[in-house]
């Protein structure tokens, strides 16, 4: 198991301390939360790309032509 490193600046002592069960649980919860957030972002990105492609098709123009219109 990985330890945390704590440097006491008043003494210069460096300690390697095992994580508590609470700290381990916190890190695992964070990983889970991030995985969910990342999946939601990816899904949104894919949906946006699909909507953009459908709109360009409906308008009958390419992406670079659309960029030109907005410049």
């Amino acid at each position, binding site marked *: 198991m990985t330890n945390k490193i704590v*440097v*006491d600046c008043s003494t210069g002592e460096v300690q390697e301390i095992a994580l508590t069960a609470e700290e381990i649980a916190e890190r*695992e919860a964070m990983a889970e939360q991030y995985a969910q957030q990342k999946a939601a972002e990816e899904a949104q990105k894919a949906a946006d790309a699909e909507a953009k492609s459908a709109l360009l098709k409906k308008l009958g123009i390419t992406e670079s032509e659309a960029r030109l219109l907005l410049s």
Partner: protein
Amino acid sequence: MATYTLISSVTVGAGGASTISFTSIPQTYTDLCLMFSARVDATIGDSYYNSYLLTNAFPLNGGASTRYLLGNGSSVSSASDGNNILLLGVTSSGATASTFGNTVAYFTNYASTTLNKSVSIDQVSENNATASAAMLSAGLYPANTAITSITIDPFSTGNFVQYSTAYLYGISNA
């Protein structure tokens, strides 16, 4: 002329480290400067890895905030984090082997008990490829609590690998 005094330093050993903390920071300097070179053993899809700069008054998700400018080799963006001081200058396991990112974080008036605490951060991750990160950040710890401890915390389950190093300097204004 400002004088830099090394307060403490640490090099991560073979077992790695989940976090690196400096505690009992002396309150006798004007400013603090934390310099570190680090890599983690995990990736969340990029060659750089999210990490946080925490203090005694602002633990994880404690209400500190960051505004940053990020260049990643192909685009530039700016963004913010409303809960933590975010760092992207740490290389992940997705970067070229044995490369370490570098960060300099400068804390002004850290010992004050009347001023909010701010930090400016200059950081680069290293990667022998197109994608890498260079980041300039402004961070705010909105409280007047003196900074007595600082922790570098890699996001999620990432751990600092062996040979990651951190140096804490005290800066005197005379």
